[in-house]
């Protein structure tokens, strides 16, 4: 993997009237990376993506794709980009194949063979000549991926790609993106409001809140905060005794009985084995220990220092 920068945002700002929707975004994405935009609804993910692909004008700053400015060199910049903006809306009255022909005609150098290649890549061979209105959501999504890959883009942009997909579909898409970055060196920019999804998919994430960039970090930092407290759910009996014992133990916060036989605690990961040893020494029966993955909101409160979420 080279260090070539595929996409670069410089002080990108979007204002509508007096409202600043996107405020001074600056970041680079190197070749071959899967880069995620994470943020609650209304944080500005979709607006940012639409500015990157030129659907929305940029008030200030610039977007460079392979060094080409999307505003002033639109045709040269956009030919490196394949995208699905929200759900892939195709011409429903055309067949899947006709839809692909339609997009192929708009880019120089897409042969008939390439169309067939992409169709088999997304495994739509059997249904490609059916009208799109007869497709299931998953099939439409795959056709969306096909149109995005048709012209061998260097950069793939997916806005909320997993919206409406079932778990199998999400998994398929994820594996597929991994495959693309590994084998073809494609760079992927993807947005989502689901933390769990981003954990599994991305290399790095940018966290957006109120149109501002809160942080850019490797996804591991987001997931297992070794230096941060996590919530654990203990299935133990008798719980009254457990609570007493836990409250005396150092390094445990917020002991709370959620229901009979279940206790929730906040503690550091490193403490967990010690706590279990202590409980066993007290002859407490342990049925299970479970890390409670925190919701995005909680995660956000932490990262943004308790600020209110849009």
């Amino acid at each position: 993997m080279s260090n070539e920068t595929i996409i670069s945002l410089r002080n990108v700002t979007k204002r509508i009237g007096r409202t600043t929707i996107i405020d001074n975004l600056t970041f680079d994405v190197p070749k071959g990376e899967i880069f995620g935009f994470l943020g609650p609804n209304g944080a500005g993910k979709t607006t940012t993506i639409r500015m990157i692909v030129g659907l929305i004008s940029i008030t200030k700053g610039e977007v460079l794709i392979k060094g080409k400015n999307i505003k002033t060199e639109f045709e040269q910049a956009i030919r490196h980009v394949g995208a699905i903006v929200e759900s892939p809306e195709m011409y429903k009255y055309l067949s899947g194949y006709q839809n692909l022909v339609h997009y192929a005609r708009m880019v120089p150098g897409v042969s008939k063979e390439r169309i067939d290649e992409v169709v088999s890549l997304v495994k739509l061979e059997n249904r490609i000549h059916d009208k799109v209105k007869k497709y299931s959501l998953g099939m439409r999504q795959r056709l969306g991926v096909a149109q995005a890959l048709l012209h061998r883009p260097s950069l793939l942009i997916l806005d909320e790609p997993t919206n409406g997909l079932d778990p199998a579909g999400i998994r398929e898409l994820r594996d597929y993106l991994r495959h693309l970055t590994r084998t073809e060196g494609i760079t992927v920019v993807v947005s989502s409001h689901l933390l769990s999804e981003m954990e599994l998919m991305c290399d790095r994430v940018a966290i957006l809140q109120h149109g501002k960039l809160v942080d850019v970090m490797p996804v591991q930092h987001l997931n297992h905060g070794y230096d941060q407290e996590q919530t654990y759910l203990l299935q133990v009996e008798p719980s009254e005794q457990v609570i007493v014992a836990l409250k005396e133990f150092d390094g445990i916060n917020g002991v709370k009985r959620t229901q009979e036989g279940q206790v929730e605690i906040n503690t550091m990961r490193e403490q967990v084995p010690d706590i279990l040893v202590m409980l066993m020494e007290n002859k407490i029966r342990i049925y299970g220990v479970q890390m409670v993955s925190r919701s995005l909101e909680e995660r956000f409160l932490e990262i943004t220092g308790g600020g209110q979420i849009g």
Partner: protein
Amino acid sequence: MVNLVLNENMKIYRRVRTWVLIGLMAAFVLFVNFIEWHSDGKEAQGDGWQSKLEQENQQWSEILKQPNLGEGDRIFYQQRIEVNNYHLKENIRSTDGTIWDGVNGSANLMIIITIFTIIIVGDSVAGEFSSGTIKLLLIRPASRSKILVSKYLSFLLFGMLLLLTLFIMSVLVNGILYGFGYMDLPLISMTADGQIVERNMVLNLWKTYMLNGVSTVMYVTMAFMISSAFRSSAMAIGFSIGALFAGNIIMEALQRFDWSKYLLFANTNLTQHLSGHPYQEGMTLSFSIGVLVIYFIVFNLISWLLFTRRDVAA
């Protein structure tokens, strides 16, 4: 650019509704001409045309005897009589009861071409917005201007296809009803300086088509502008067809105002200059063309500005 027009054509002709419109066009031509033929064209066939022309001449001579006849009407009837006399003298059949009677009459159906093209146009830009396909369309290496122009060209092609349908259907239907016998009949008319001339009927027909086509293009351009401005098919189709029908009524009400001659609707019908009865005194063909060109440029400029500048947010 050719590819973009191919794309737009694919989006037009791969839809059932487009073929319903074309089928309706053909059906209208068939229906109207059959009714026409059934009600009076049938009797006019055969060799009775001489006596009919003589009858007409007699009627008009009676009218000319009226003392309070206006100057314009007097000239009109005098000219008609002279044209009829030419027919009789040279033994050239009048169009009554021939294929041309129906074919020329069918040119009035061009208003249907306007309506049907407006339907396709109104949906073309707005439909891409409402279905969301506009997003995938605009993230290709083709500028918005090129996409807009390709759409516009595809509408003109569609209008021409309807015109061709009209022409072929009217020739076929009337040929079957009246027989193809008088295809080479000349058009007898009188020039402005009182000369009687024979002209080619087919050329004259296409001249009528083209003059009416100007009005179609104007309404289509208007629908296109509304479609790009409001991104609503219903609004584009409704407004444009409304204007098409209400235009004449509004113009009648405004006729006494001098400035009304600058309005679009006062100029769309260029055939008014052929008949010599323009909307207001002093309007010439070049005046109307000038006004139409300005409207045409303004409409297209607005479409272009709105389509290329505005954000695609929804």
